[in-house]
């Protein structure tokens, strides 16, 4: 009961904060102290957004960025968990590779982005590869932590019953480590998303990142803000959904 009430009031405060932000935006732009080139009014942004949707540009850019993110995220999840599974087969491999993976993740991999462009060109595949590389690390690190934490006696029992490697994975290792892996998967999504947008902004032919960069170059602040507001709303909503899934999984 108390939990519900405090949850409700924290939601109310969050909504109030959002309203305040939009109000301040409206106030600042209507006062005219800041040039509309830097800060367009909320209404002009809304109009720009409607125009984007109606022209079909919104959907085509969203499709490109969305499919790039989904491909990169899928590769990151599969490669990350597979690598973690292989590494956690032996304590020695964990001792060798866990610090290596954590160490590489600490490097700003943006440094390597030009290499991806060089090798794969400015089409979506360079963004897929770059974002998948970045998104791989949180999945792998969390899955290593999760798989290593599976209680030894569950594995021993499964082994004694003759469980196959796949059945052991499916019924023991995966459920035992699922909440931790899910955290890695959520972090991976945002890293992948940010990497794709960043990559598109730097060097691309299409996609949301490219649109934002282009709008800024062409002095179309309303369109640029329309994209930015969309990305913000989308990220917040996705985070809410993924966090909810995560807390439901760990409550189990």
């Amino acid at each position, binding site marked *: 009961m108390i939990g519900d009430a405090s949850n409700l009031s924290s939601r109310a405060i969050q909504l109030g904060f959002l309203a305040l932000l939009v109000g301040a935006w409206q106030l600042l732009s209507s006062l005219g102290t800041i040039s509309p080139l830097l800060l367009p009014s909320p209404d002009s942004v809304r109009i720009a957004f409607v125009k984007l949707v109606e022209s079909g540009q919104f959907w085509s850019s969203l499709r490109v960025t969305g499919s790039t993110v989904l491909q990169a995220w899928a590769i990151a999840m599969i490669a990350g968990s597979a690598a973690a599974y292989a590494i956690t087969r032996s304590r020695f491999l964990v001792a060798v590779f866990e610090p290596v993976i954590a160490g590489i993740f600490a490097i700003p991999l943006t440094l390597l982005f030009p290499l991806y462009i060089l090798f794969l060109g400015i089409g979506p595949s360079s963004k897929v590869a770059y974002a998948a590389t970045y998104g791989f690390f949180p999945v792998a690190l969390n899955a290593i932590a999760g798989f290593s934490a599976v209680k030894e*006696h569950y594995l021993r*029992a499964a082994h004694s019953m*003759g469980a196959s490697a796949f*059945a052991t994975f499916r019924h023991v290792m995966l459920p035992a480590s699922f909440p931790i892996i899910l955290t890695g998967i959520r972090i991976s999504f945002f890293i992948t998303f940010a990497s794709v947008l960043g990559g598109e902004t730097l060097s691309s032919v299409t996609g949301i990142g490219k649109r934002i960069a282009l709008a800024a170059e062409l002095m179309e602040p309303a369109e640029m803000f329309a994209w930015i507001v969309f990305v913000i709303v989308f990220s917040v909503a996705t985070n809410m959904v993924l966090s909810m899934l995560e807390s439901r999984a760990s409550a189990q």
Partner: protein
Amino acid sequence: MNKMTPAGQIVSSQTAAISIQNVRQQYPGRHSSAAVLALDDISLDIPRGEFVCLLGPSGCGKSTLLNIVGGLIKPTAGKVQVSGRTIDGPSPRDIAFIFQESTLLPWYTIRENFHVSFKFSRIARSEWQSRTEEALAAVGMSRFIDHYPEQLSVGMRQRVNLARGIALGTDIILMDEPFAALDEQTRMVLGEDLSELLAKTGKTIVFVTHSLAEAVFLSDRVYVMAARPGRLKTIVEIDEPHPRSPDFMLTTRFGDLRNQLYGLLRDEVREGLQIERKSSAAAGRT
């Protein structure tokens, strides 16, 4: 009356369910000098349908021996035969394990836990439901079939765990201190139930325990082991039909057997403690 037979006595191999032949187990230490000889040339035959206990001081290799019989560890030397077949890895058709900690998976209900175990052991799906229901009914836990393990007390959980081990339908069950985590009253009651449950089935049971009373109450014979290196010391036979009533515990014979086991173990435990003191003193000097 109880007979003592010399260690390593050979029972005719036709009646032996488990035949342990010259098993040695050496664990590699960090340095080659630190290698542990856990079992030194153990040979024994466990007759079909008997309930036997492994009793011995901590570290004498009881768990190691059980894991070797179950195929979870490959021995350094020697071999184990089950129904004439040499053990080489887990054989879920013949052997079920029950461990000290309940190994019910917390993310599945009791029913799901049974089903997953049957799946692991490759038991036909058509039997899953009936086997689950029968086993739970046998231990009086049918009501909890759709509960999660965490909703049960530790004692109830181990009861269910026991039922699952039996439900796997193997001829042999290996139990490594299955009641060690329970309070004394609960383990007495579970022990009585186990004696009753198994009297009907004719299964061969190898049971590791530290409890002298448990060993006498449950087993047909007690293998007393010695430590450092782990080896077989003597076999004490407990000639009393199953199922055993709690009244057996009140007889003087029960007390005598218990005292006899204590007498055999006391020296071993003393020796173990002394060796420990000596070796730590030696370590202090270097």
